[in-house]
């Protein structure tokens, strides 16, 4: 057979591979009609109806309060710092706590951008409380039940965060992925096909009445938070090197835009890594990968002119101070606040 026939056959296969999925466009229209609006994070989903509107009340409160210091984080910060006591220990400076349970770095970035920087005069200092690699994990708590909380801090278009998530999920050439969606319109089909596939086996294992609640029950009874292993064990199988690879993850995280915003607005940035729950009354064991990660994070923040404090290994934070998980008992909030200010006295002076 001639080389030309072989060459032609090759091009037919290559072109067919790229052209055949165009059939997805008409197929997508067969699915349930979507009347939802465009998502502010199109990387995650093209259309979506917000669960919560953007919270303007917080902006108003901040405007009235004119804080000098804002404290941002999730319940880790909330269970450690008593903001009123913190303010009094600093000579009654205005301190605004923005601790929202079950949030991650995407939320903190948006809270800083859309709430804190929306107010003038700007605060002088922003302190972020986080655990381990949360600062470089923008996907932490942005989907599922956590999305409603993110809605509160998100404007109708969050292009920068979208780019961060897109590069994390699809790599630096994420625009090609967006282009593929333009061409094949696959996301629309995916939105109803994916749940249909996941629900397909439900009818085979449960009766009609139970079927509707099966997946919800599985999540709440079998895969609930209490049933999971402690992080140290669960992390073993995850490629730790990849998870805690600071150099690889920082470029696709909210940390660089967060620091850039801080610099632009003239707000000093401080980051506090809280200590996880001690084991046998000793600081939790850190894998070599995590140690390396923290050391790289420290170097990076130093270089960027931000302040970094690490709680890990503090002998003044024994197991007896902890309530559930990594949270401190509320009775120790003053003690932690005192200790925090004492250790970082030069910074807060």
């Amino acid at each position, binding site marked *: 057979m001639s080389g030309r026939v072989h060459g032609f056959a090759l091009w037919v296969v290559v072109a067919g*591979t790229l052209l055949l*999925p165009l059939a997805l466009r008409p197929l997508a229209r067969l699915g349930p009609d979507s009347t939802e609006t465009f998502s502010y994070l199109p990387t995650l989903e093209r259309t979506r109806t917000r669960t919560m509107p953007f919270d303007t009340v917080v902006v108003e409160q901040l405007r009235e309060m004119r804080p000098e210091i804002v404290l941002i984080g999730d319940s880790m910060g909330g269970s450690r710092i008593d903001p009123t006591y913190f303010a009094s220990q600093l000579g009654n400076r205005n301190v605004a706590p923005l601790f929202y349970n079950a949030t991650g770095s995407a939320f903190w970035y948006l809270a800083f951008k859309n709430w804190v920087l929306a107010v003038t005069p700007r605060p002088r200092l922003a302190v972020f409380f986080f655990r381990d690699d949360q600062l470089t994990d923008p996907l932490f708590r942005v989907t599922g039940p956590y999305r409603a909380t993110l809605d509160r801090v998100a404007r109708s278009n969050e292009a920068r965060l979208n780019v961060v998530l897109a590069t994390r*999920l699809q790599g630096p*050439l994420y625009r090609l992925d967006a282009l593929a969606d333009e061409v094949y319109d*696959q996301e629309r089909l995916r939105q109803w096909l994916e749940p249909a596939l996941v629900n397909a086996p439900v009818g*085979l294992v*449960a009766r009609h009445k139970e079927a509707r609640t099966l997946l919800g*029950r599985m999540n709440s009874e079998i895969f609930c938070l209490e049933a999971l292993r402690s992080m140290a064990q669960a992390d073993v199988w995850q490629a730790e090197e990849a998870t805690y*690879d600071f150099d690889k993850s920082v470029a696709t995280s909210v940390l660089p835009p967060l620091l850039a915003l801080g610099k632009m607005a003239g707000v000093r940035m401080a980051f506090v890594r809280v200590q996880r729950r001690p084991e046998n009354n000793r600081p939790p064991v850190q894998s*070599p990968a995590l140690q390396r990660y923290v050391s790289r994070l420290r170097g990076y923040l130093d270089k960027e002119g931000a302040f970094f404090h690490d709680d890990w290994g503090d002998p003044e934070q024994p197991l007896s101070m902890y309530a559930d998980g990594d949270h401190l008992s509320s009775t120790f909030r003053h003690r932690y606040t005192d200790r925090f200010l004492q250790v970082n006295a030069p910074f807060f002076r």
Partner: protein
Amino acid sequence: MIFHSLEFLVFFVTTVTIYWALPHRWQNVLLLVASYMFYGWVHPWFLGLIFATTFIDYLSALGMGRWPARKKLFLWTSIVSNFGLLGFFKYFNFFVDNISAVAAAVGWHISGPVLSVLLPVGISFYTFQAMSYTIDVYWGRVQARRTFIDLALFVSFFPHLVAGPIMRARTLLPQVEQPRRFSANAARNSTVLIVWGLFKKLVIADNVGVIANKVFALQSPDFFPLWAGVFAFCIQIYADFSAYTDIARGTAKWLGFDLVVNFDHPYLAVGPADFWRRWNISLTTWFRDYVFLPLSYALSRRWDGIRWLGLDDDIWIYGTATLVTFLLSGLWHGASWNYVLWGAYHGVLLALARAGAATWKPRRSVRRWLTPFRILGMFALTNLGWLVFRETDLHTLVRDLALSPFHRSPFGRQAGAYLFLLAALYSLPLWIHSLWVYNRPAPQGADNGPSATRVDPIVGHEPTLWRVAAQTCLSGVLFAAILILRSRTSLDFIYFRF
């Protein structure tokens, strides 16, 4: 750089385009530069290691040719340096931890140093490949190469650098050295192979991987969810690893290279020996040629004619050599006791199967009738092995193995059945493909790699009208399925960590 990324697509298309416009010598230079770029993309310091391995093996092999009387010294230089690198980066902490634990057990408290460096991706693969070169030169099976670029390309050739298949010098080096011609036929077949590989990775492996990860994150899973999770992992590891090999073979074919077939539908194996003829074939044959056979010969000289416990010498020799080989193979997979246990488990299975086959030889008709049961039985045993492989915590492993189907929560069976069916649903194309290909003979002129045992209908041969139409449809449908069904959670290739 990873195969299922757009950056790899750009990298690959650019490399192929420039590559075929160059003369042979420059093609090798380009491939070497591209391979080093591929490997050092995220961590450039990895390149120092691969260069060191290549350079030491290059000099060792040349030394063997120049000073034959000192061949053994050069061989040991190569082996010690390769194992030294591997041992330092992969096993240092494991050995220190275990020495500390043993010392603590006898009352000494030693706190050893902890190595805080990243495990270089693919180090286990390329050190084994490089070592096979020096051992083959030592045995006189391969001539020492004088052109460093050719040898460096043999060690670092990017399609199979990170997760195999492990190529032998006598198979790959001639392909590096001889001029290559673009084959549109091979490129067409390999396009389908690449799309099939991407489908296996992004649709099957990553989706069932989510199920496995969820189950193995549980502190104490119930019997049924646990085994559904093990089944999901069983599918994940096969789809994931064979996907890597398919993409590696496909991309290599676009560059005019043939890489060996690494998987031959292993879950249709009828017994342990058959399984290992089908699973990670390049690693299994590496251990067979460089560990099992030399050890067997050494043992046969010592144990010739012995008869213990009513069993002949060949059973003892085979059993011992197999067990040692599989213990080492288990350790190759990772610095953790569960991998060693997994290796031992398969070693024992093989030895028992051999002893069983020596005592019970059913007629061919009975064997044929038993085949489906043997496949199911071997699949169950393989799943048990994957539990050992996946569960890194030995206490949890013991607890998992002690779980009884009769002590379950009321909801557990339903949840387990759901997870099992979901994993089965995602893996359906894999089973259809395996059953379709099963027992197909390899016709003459098979263009399916040097060690193909049967021809995969996915990669046909001459471009007949029907074949091209079928390949186009298949490839297009697979690509469409990737677009709409790929997992939203992108997981790394499992074998990257080994």
